[in-house]
């Protein structure tokens, strides 16, 4: 029995589980340490899996420790490994006890202790690696002749390219919203093949340099092996920084510290498993073969072929499973990188022990020449191609959406940003996710003195998280599953071109309350001076009914008689039906006590709620009830919209029953939209693509008010207009905030105005929008028909035609347009920084 746990496979599995446990522990602690990720991921418990891991952390550690101990047992008798092994077990027992008394999920957020724990979590892996090295006695061959690794690299490049290229047409067919013609697909294949070949040739040259440098040492074999360890450590550090940490805006010293610690631990752990694998074969291996020993599945072509096919199938199955909830393609990139390594390892086992030819460099030189020729061809194609689908900038970008391997190659090893753009992207990053700076709150006041031109109506503000307008019939005539909202819209004002100023809840909701863009920091507190909505609600003496979530708890001042909705309900489980059901009961009860109808004085009601059943974290696991189908729509999402519609209709019936409907202002909107597969995008990570920025905005006003005000339903409108619009509907006269300058572009405007007020100026201006979670900014211009995006994470720019019948097609930009857009973004971000008295550190 004990021999079972001495086998390389058992040891490999145990080490992998152990590494995964401590790696996830480190990631959790790092997310908790970073204020932004703590607010957005940990506190609202966005990931159920991560939350469960933290809750059951102690028990999972005990399980992992048990498995690890079984694989240590066969080697504890060995002199060199004995003390390392026993000390590891004793320390782990102590650690286990500490985990049970200091549960992970109860650790204080954003404390330095979490950063320390994130780094220290890598120590067990390193400790075990020491044990594995001490427990095995493996010789490393110092080859007398040079054996080139380049043929393996080329075969790996060809295999990996083919695996993803073959699947690209299917992914294109299954995905909507990618404008890629047959010619564009061919161009994508060509560029992808060239990129894979060039990239793996580069890797082969690096490996060749390493083996050559090792040749100068006294022990070439051993030196070569440890140089491979160093390269692996550097590669893992690079991947962690670019793929894992940058997408969640974790940079700087903390990111480097954790990445290097994790990379050293992972590379060392791998080395330990490799030595066990080599020891079981009782062979003296070449350094690279020793390093790849865990991947040696056999020396026959059949075994390798089966292994490669299995790896390809597993890769596609994994991607199909994870693509609907994959923050910034993070998991797809990691799966792809794993395939690269596994394929290389499998193919290398077939490498023949032949000396490389003297002129081994001819092959790589041909690759470099081909790559250069390809670059020239692409630049010529951009100017000469009459077919817009062959524009390399668009075709290659579109192809990258359906080929994760090419996306990884392009994103990880893309060339540096040109000097003129580097400064611009640096500016964006310097003004984003501001941390560690104390800023004073700004005052947002839409009126100097309160007045009331008419009696105060009740206000119901429904901000349905992630609700898209194209799933509502007032915006999309092909929708047949929102009859209640359709009927509501017929009695309301439907603003056709409404956009959120922020592509994520974190900043979008506070900006709605402020009626203005706010600085890219979560958050400048106290928020009271900036919260124009709260000022309005207080001034008018509203009785408040507010859903309790992490934003309202932190940023919306509670009055003594605030009625909290959804108390004790986990935030991610807030649903529209549950909340409106609770609210309806409260209103019906209240109507019995306070009376209702004309002539009976009562405090007006203000309701604020943000249900989350449409959030991508919930949609990813949502099922479609039997009997429902939604052709042309994402069925789980559409099914939940249908349910929301039914509950919305029931709630409006309650308002009519309690005689509250006629004198109510009812706003149905969302804080942002979401990607549901457009261009293989899911969710609303850093992106600010059109489908994430578009929101529904349907406002019902009492009959008595309608006749006094006017609106332009096709004029571009923003989430930051909601609060000043409420001011106008409640009888106030919100004026222009200060003079007509850049700052007015940041602040919302009332959507209902006196009939003769000039509204045309907004059609000519460009309005800043942003991601809530990273340095991605955009401009909405031409009355909501054009979107320019500058992505400071990937140093990339886009432009989209948002015209109603153009399906958000990506369009080109002239250099003048690009420069004008960058200037406008700089100007508005700069004005926002001035307003808050913020300047980035040099």
């Amino acid at each position, binding site marked *: 029995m004990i021999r079972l746990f001495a086998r390389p496979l058992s040891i490999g599995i145990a080490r992998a589980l152990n590494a995964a446990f401590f790696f996830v522990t480190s990631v959790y602690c790092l997310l908790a340490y970073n204020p932004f990720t703590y607010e957005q991921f940990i506190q609202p418990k966005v990931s159920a899996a991560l939350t469960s891991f933290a809750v059951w952390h102690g028990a999972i550690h005990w399980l992992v420790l048990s498995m690890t101990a079984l694989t240590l047992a066969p080697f504890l008798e060995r002199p060199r490994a004995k003390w390392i092994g026993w000390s590891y077990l004793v320390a782990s027992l102590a650690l286990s006890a500490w985990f049970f008394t200091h549960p992970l999920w109860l650790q204080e957020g954003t404390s330095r202790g979490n950063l320390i724990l994130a780094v220290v979590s890598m120590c067990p892996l390193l400790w075990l690696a020491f044990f594995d090295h001490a427990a095995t006695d493996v010789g490393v061959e110092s080859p007398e002749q*040079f054996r080139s690794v380049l043929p393996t690299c080329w075969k790996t490049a060809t295999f990996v390219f083919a695996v993803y290229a073959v699947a690209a047409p299917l992914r294109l067919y299954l995905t909507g919203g990618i404008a890629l013609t047959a010619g564009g697909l061919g161009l994508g294949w060509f560029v992808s093949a060239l990129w894979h070949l*060039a990239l793996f*040739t*580069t890797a082969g*040259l*690096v490996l*060749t*340099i390493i083996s*050559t*440098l090792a*040749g*100068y040492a006294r022990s070439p074999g051993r030196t070569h092996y440890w140089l491979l360890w160093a390269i692996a450590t550097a590669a893992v550090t690079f991947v962690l920084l670019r793929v894992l940490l940058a997408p969640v805006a974790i940079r700087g010293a903390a990111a480097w510290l954790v990445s290097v610690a994790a990379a050293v631990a992972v590379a060392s752990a791998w080395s330990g498993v490799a030595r066990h694998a080599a020891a079981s074969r009782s062979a003296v291996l070449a350094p690279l073969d020793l390093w790849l020993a865990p991947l040696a599945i056999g020396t026959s072509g059949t075994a390798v072929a089966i292994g490669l096919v299995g790896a390809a199938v597993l890769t596609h199955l994994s991607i199909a499973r994870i693509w609907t909830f994959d923050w910034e393609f993070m998991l797809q990139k990691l799966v792809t990188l794993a395939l690269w390594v596994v394929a290389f390892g499998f193919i290398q086992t077939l490498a023949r022990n032949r000396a490389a030819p*003297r002129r*081994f*460099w001819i092959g*790589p*030189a041909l690759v*470099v020449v081909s*790559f*250069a020729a390809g*670059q*020239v061809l*692409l*630049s010529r194609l*951009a*100017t000469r191609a009459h077919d817009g689908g062959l524009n390399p*900038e668009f075709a290659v970008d579109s192809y990258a959406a359906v080929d994760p391997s090419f996306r990884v190659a392009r994103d990880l090893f*893309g*060339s*540096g940003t*040109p000097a003129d753009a580097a400064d611009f992207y640096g500016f964006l990053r310097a003004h984003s996710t501001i941390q560690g700076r104390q800023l004073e709150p700004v005052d947002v006041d839409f009126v100097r003195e309160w007045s009331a031109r008419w009696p105060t109506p009740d206000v119901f503000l429904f901000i349905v998280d992630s609700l898209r307008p194209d799933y509502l019939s007032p915006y999309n005539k092909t929708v047949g599953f929102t009859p209640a909202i359709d009927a509501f819209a017929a009695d309301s*004002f439907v603003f*056709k071109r409404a956009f959120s100023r922020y592509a994520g809840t974190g900043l979008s909701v506070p900006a709605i309350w402020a009626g203005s863009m706010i600085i890219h920091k979560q958050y400048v507190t106290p928020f009271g001076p900036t919260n124009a909505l709260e000022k309005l609600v207080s001034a008018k003496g509203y009785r408040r009914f507010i859903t309790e979530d992490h934003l309202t708890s932190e940023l919306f001042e509670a009055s003594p008689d605030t009625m909290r909705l959804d108390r004790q309900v986990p935030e991610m489980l807030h649903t529209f039906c549950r909340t409106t059901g609770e609210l309806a009961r409260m209103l019906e009860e209240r109507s019995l006590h306070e009376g209702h109808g004309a002539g009976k004085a009562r405090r007006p009601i203000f309701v604020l709620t943000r249900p989350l059943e449409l959030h991508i974290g919930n949609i990813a696991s949502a099922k479609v009830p039997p009997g429902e189908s939604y052709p042309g729509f994402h069925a789980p999402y559409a099914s939940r919209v249908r349910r929301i519609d039914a509950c919305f209709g029931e709630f409006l019936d309650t308002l009519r029953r309690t005689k509250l409907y006629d004198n109510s202002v009812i706003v149905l909107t969302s804080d942002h939209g979401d990607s549901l597969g457009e261009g293989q995008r899911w969710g609303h990570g850093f992106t600010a693509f059109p489908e994430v920025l578009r929101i529904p905005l349907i406002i019902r006003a009492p009959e008595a008010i*309608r*006749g006094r005000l*006017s*609106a*332009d*339903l*096709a*004029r571009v409108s923003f989430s930051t207009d909601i609060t000043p619009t409420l001011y106008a509907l409640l009888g106030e006269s919100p004026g222009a905030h200060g003079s007509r300058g850049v700052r007015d572009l940041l602040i919302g405007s009332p959507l209902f105005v006196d*009939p*003769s007020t000039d*509204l*045309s100026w907004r*059609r000519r201006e460009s309005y800043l929008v942003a991601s809530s979670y990273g340095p991605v900014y955009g401009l909405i211009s*031409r*009355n909501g*028909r054009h979107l320019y995006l500058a992505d400071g994470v990937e140093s990339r720019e886009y432009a989209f*035609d948002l*015209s*109603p019948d153009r399906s958000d097609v990506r369009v*080109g*930009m*002239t*250099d*003048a*347009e690009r*420069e*004008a857009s960058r200037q406008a973004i700089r100007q508005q971000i700069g004005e926002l920084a001035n307003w808050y008295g913020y300047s980035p550190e040099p």
Partner: protein
Amino acid sequence: MASHHDRLVPCLILLTAFFVVRTLGDRARPSVSPLDCERIVAADMTAMERCLTVRPADIELMAELGRAYERADRWGRAESIYRQALEVDVDDGDMRVRLGQLLLRRGDAGGARRQAEIAVALQPGRSGPRDLLRQTAIGGQPGLDR
């Protein structure tokens, strides 16, 4: 040693060549149009017409050009440009009012009324569409918008 150098030097040269090619390839992006339409002067009709060929969906540019045509009494061109703008954006209420006023001035009260009715639906309560609708009913001349 000789064999080590024989491998090391070509590898370093090839790696350098790869990164140089990659960097130069990114910089070889062609510029599309030298015409700087971001800073166009509204009164320059010729410049606006040239910009329109590069930016055929720029409604704000069309509105400025239409005003310029009206000032120059080129009513046919103005009507054509307003209709072109409405093909780009059928929901532009301001453009419908502008076209309606032009049609009324040219004696097409029926056409003006149709534009006014659409504009009223797009801009409920706004004085522009309301006034135009009233004018089409009484057959009056709209004020010239210069």
